């Protein structure tokens, strides 16, 4: 068994890693880890005033500090029923454009592009791509400048407060931004053409559900009061948990999310997929020119989507400035009263849907819940890495090629690890790693076993045979496939215990080789999932699925009417021995 791992992953924001375990010809496990420790931000502001909360909670993340600021402000103003004047809303949108431009240009040019042109970093790239590096620096600087002028600082600006701003920026500053945005247009198109015409590899490709905020009025934008999915489903802001369904995994300090039991994606690509049709003017034209079916299934197109959004932002800035100057009479800040209440704020951070939920009681913050985009993407990042690793392995690619691709995939998602908490490695694991894995599972809880297969099809009978042997040795928690098909109630009362399916599975290895796979990976691996989906669908909810495994033996033949072959019989004995050993532990 081998482990491919990139840890820490460079050129991402924060410290994390990705690892893939390869057992012979099958990828058995993929983990996206976040190496930063827990900061407990959601607890730090409890007992503080709403104003302190607005200043403290955006410090989760430097790269998305404006998004966090806008999200906490929207949540708090909903909780306290504060209505802010139009000029405040428009200026907040302007500073959001600044962050989008800054973050997207940093990501596409500095972090992503070096991979495609073969340099270790953007500075080294400058020797050959002088103009590109200069565009990137200027573009990023422009985004930062907007954030500083409107928000007060590049990072963690304190000017936006509940009810408005400490102080409005001067009009001449706004006119400068407008003229600069217009002047910069040729370089924006150069960026767009570059990233929309890059040769993105076609692996991994697979459909997913995309989610983003709906700004309403059939407009493209970066915040709203509803979540809109690519399936057409909608959720009002306070019902965000219906989408996110957060849970904790033991290999990361970032929480995870799934929708209907499946991973989903957020970010620039999600936004363009869900509401790209709404883009107008030049960005609308460019959407029609470049958007195609590959954007729907290939996460590497995140970079293209980001470039399209850069164009959208540059087009929006002059419009915003024109609107802002029409509201010169609006007050910078409106008075408000602290009252009891709960509020949710939804915004699109550069890397996707960001949710802030804040509750106020007796004048102080009482409960905070923050769901970040990278935490929502983590499951889909793992899924796409799994697909990529398996496909490249099937086509005979080497470890370092697989590792490079995994890095490319993770980086495309533009993960922001500070938010959730660097990323990809290829390592060799000891042979017979399944034994250790099995021991770890059995140490915690005694498992429920399910024998799968057909005794009439030679080696395919090994699962059933194993189950029957276990029963003979006095284990009562053993079922056969046929038994659970007949009586579903047999499962009752086993919900908290790990499930281990016993079966002969073809994973392209020497006959008699044993593997232990997590069920999650079985279900996204095409040939195996066809066999297992009918067995597990309906019987298992996601919680059990996380705790379910497949202990498989490589068969020689599954021809009708034969006997179990000697190597498989030998493997069966080893497995039985390990299982009985494990049972004694309990």
């Amino acid at each position, binding site marked *: 068994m081998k482990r491919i791992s990139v840890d*820490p992953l*460079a*050129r*991402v*924001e*924060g*410290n994390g890693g990705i690892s893939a375990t390869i057992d012979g010809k099958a990828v058995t496990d993929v983990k996206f880890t976040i*190496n*930063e*420790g*827990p*900061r*407990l*931000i*959601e*607890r*730090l502001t409890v*007992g*503080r*005033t709403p104003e*302190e909360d607005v*200043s*403290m909670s955006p*410090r*989760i*993340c*430097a*790269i998305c*500090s404006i998004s966090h600021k806008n999200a906490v402000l929207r949540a708090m103003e909903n909780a306290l029923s504060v209505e802010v004047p139009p000029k405040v809303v428009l200026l907040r949108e302007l500073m959001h454009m600044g962050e989008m431009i800054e973050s997207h240009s*940093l990501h596409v040019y*500095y972090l992503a592009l*070096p991979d495609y042109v073969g340099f*270790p*970093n953007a*500075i*080294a790239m*400058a020797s050959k791509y002088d103009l590109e*590096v200069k565009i990137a*620096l*200027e573009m990023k*600087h422009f985004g*930062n400048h907007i954030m500083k002028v409107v928000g*007060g*600082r*590049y*990072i*963690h*600006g*304190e*000017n936006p*407060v509940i009810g408005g*701003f*400490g*102080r409005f920026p001067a009009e001449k500053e706004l006119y400068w931004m407008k003229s600069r945005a217009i002047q910069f247009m040729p370089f924006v198109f150069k960026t767009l053409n570059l990233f929309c015409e890059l040769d993105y590899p076609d692996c991994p490709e697979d459909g997913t559900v995309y989610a983003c905020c709906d700004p309403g009025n059939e407009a493209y934008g970066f915040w709203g009061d509803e979540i809109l999915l690519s399936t057409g489903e909608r959720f009002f802001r306070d019902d965000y948990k219906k989408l996110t369904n957060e849970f*904790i995994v*033991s*290999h990361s*300090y970032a929480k995870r999310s799934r929708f209907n039991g499946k991973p989903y994606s957020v970010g620039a690509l999600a936004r363009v997929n869900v509401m790209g049709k709404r883009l107008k003017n030049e960005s609308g034209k460019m959407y029609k020119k470049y958007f195609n079916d590959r954007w729907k299934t290939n996460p590497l197109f995140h970079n293209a989507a980001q470039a399209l959004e850069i164009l959208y932002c540059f087009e929006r800035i002059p419009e915003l400035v024109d609107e802002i100057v029409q509201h010169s009479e609006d007050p910078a800040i409106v008075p408000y009263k602290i009252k009891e209440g709960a509020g949710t704020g939804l915004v699109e951070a550069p890397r996707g849907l960001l949710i802030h939920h804040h509750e106020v009681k007796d004048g102080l913050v009482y409960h905070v819940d923050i769901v970040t985009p990278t935490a929502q993407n983590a499951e889909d990042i793992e899924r796409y890495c799994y697909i990529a690793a398996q496909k490249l392995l099937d086509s005979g690619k080497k470890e370092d090629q697989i590792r490079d691709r995994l890095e490319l995939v993770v980086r495309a998602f533009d993960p922001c*690890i*500070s938010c959730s908490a660097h990323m990809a490695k290829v390592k060799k694991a000891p042979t017979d790693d399944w034994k250790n894995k099995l021991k770890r599972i059995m140490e915690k809880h005694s498992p429920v076993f399910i024998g799968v297969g057909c005794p009439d099809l030679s080696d395919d009978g090994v699962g059933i045979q194993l189950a029957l042997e276990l029963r003979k040795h006095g284990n009562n928690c053993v079922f056969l496939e046929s038994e659970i098909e007949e009586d579903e109630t047999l499962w009752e009362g086993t919900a908290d215990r790990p499930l281990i399916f016993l079966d002969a599975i073809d994973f392209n290895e020497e006959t008699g080789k044993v593997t232990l796979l997590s069920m999650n990976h079985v279900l996204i691996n095409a040939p195996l999932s066809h066999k297992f989906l009918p067995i597990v669908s309906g019987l298992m909810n996601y919680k059990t699925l996380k705790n379910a495994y497949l202990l498989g033996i490589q068969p020689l033949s599954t021809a009708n009417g034969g006997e179990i072959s000697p190597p498989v019989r030998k493997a069966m004995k080893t497995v039985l021995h390990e299982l009985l050993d494990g049972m004694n532990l309990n």
Partner: protein
Amino acid sequence: MKNNIPKIGIYELTGCAGDALLILDCEEELLDIFQAADIQSFLMAKSDNIDGALDVALVEGSVTTETEVEELKDIRQRAKIVVAIGLCATAGGLQARFTDPREWEKNLELVYGHTEMTHRKAIQSKPIDAYIDVDFYLPGCPISKEQFLNFFTRLVGGSPPEKYPRPVCVSCKYNENLCLLKQGLPCLGPLTADGCGSVCINHNLPCLGCWGPVEGANAVSEFYLLKDKGFDTEFIKKILANYSGTKTPTFFDQLEKERA
């Protein structure tokens, strides 16, 4: 290839990555920075990182996992000079607010429940000088561009960095702001190290203290001033603690002594 220029490594522990990002935000100076120094390791910016002997290590973030303690000790061994950059590295950051271990454990459980972590073991957040000797400090949440460039220029020129023993009020006066304390707002300018150029007060907003305490801060006098303006003791103690991390006790000790 690069012989007479200092070897520098930039490292991130747990935090918002804002200080490393701020270095990348020096857009106009960035190409010069990479020429003036041999940047051996900078995970956010490059993938060809080397972990060898260094002249200077800049460390951002607070220490919150056991692995980070090991990483930090390794950095100290390799580097002639270690600089703590940003509030998290200098004072533990916002996340160092739970100074009582039981309170910290309770809150860890409230966020992550009872899930057994196979991941790196979490420990209470502390500044880097809790584990290693630190040569220089560059505070701020996040650090300021001007302060960083000034610091960096002196460093590559072989001079010791300049100290900033002044409170925010000094910049505030240069900027001709009206004193917010006089207007009854809970401004922490007098207690806070300068470096931001009094940015919040320039925007009519009170100083939050995000650079951490300035040397010789008179917490007692600020405390009674705020009491006079009608703020209650609990509130004052909370705002003193928000951005002071593990340096908070210095404030509270002063208050205790005054009472005794």
